[in-house]
């Protein structure tokens, strides 16, 4: 499975949040954040919307369509 490009790690570090802090904000586990950041896991549309909301961006600014 090829990695799914996204800017989650970049935006998280720009906000100076740890993976655990972002996980808490999104209501998911840290493992999920790790897997999303590394592109191993493609989040659901609902989680993608949440991610976009916490970073105050549009989804397409964070996730790259394959």
């Amino acid at each position, binding site marked *: *499975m090829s990695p799914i490009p996204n800017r989650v790690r970049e935006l998280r570090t720009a906000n100076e949040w740890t993976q655990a802090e972002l996980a808490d904000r999104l*209501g*998911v586990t840290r*493992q*999920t954040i*790790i*897997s999303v950041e590394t592109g*191993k*896991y493609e989040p659901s549309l609902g989680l993608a919307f949440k991610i976009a909301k916490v970073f105050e961006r549009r989804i397409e600014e964070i996730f790259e369509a394959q």
Partner: protein
Amino acid sequence: MLYILGMENPTLSVHPSSAARLVDGAIVAVWFASYIAARVIITNVPHGSAMAIGAAILPIVPTLVVLWRATLAIRGLDELHRRVHLEALAAAFVLTVLMLWTLGLLELAINLNRDNWSYRHVWAYMPLFYFLGLALAWRRYR
């Protein structure tokens, strides 16, 4: 509940409260105890008696409680963990069917000692298949 059954990795997921762990631990202990008690009763009362039948259905209630708690635990998982456990269950299901078929066919093909190998032994392998599925699924998403 899932962490007790080995289905959850507590270092990677939301931690349930210690009270919840205690309750779930007690429920699982009662569940296993009900099965052992049923076996003991059945082997010590007349075959076919009302007591034996009652003992045989004794584990149903604690099993339903475990099912309820496991369902709650699954609902409390985040989406990645749900996917991982679904893939693990799918692997366990298919491997269990494979083992049942293989044992059944081998019983027809050769003289298998049923005390050592039969469908009655498959249940013991189900957790093993589940853990194997979990390991494979986590390997994919880590």
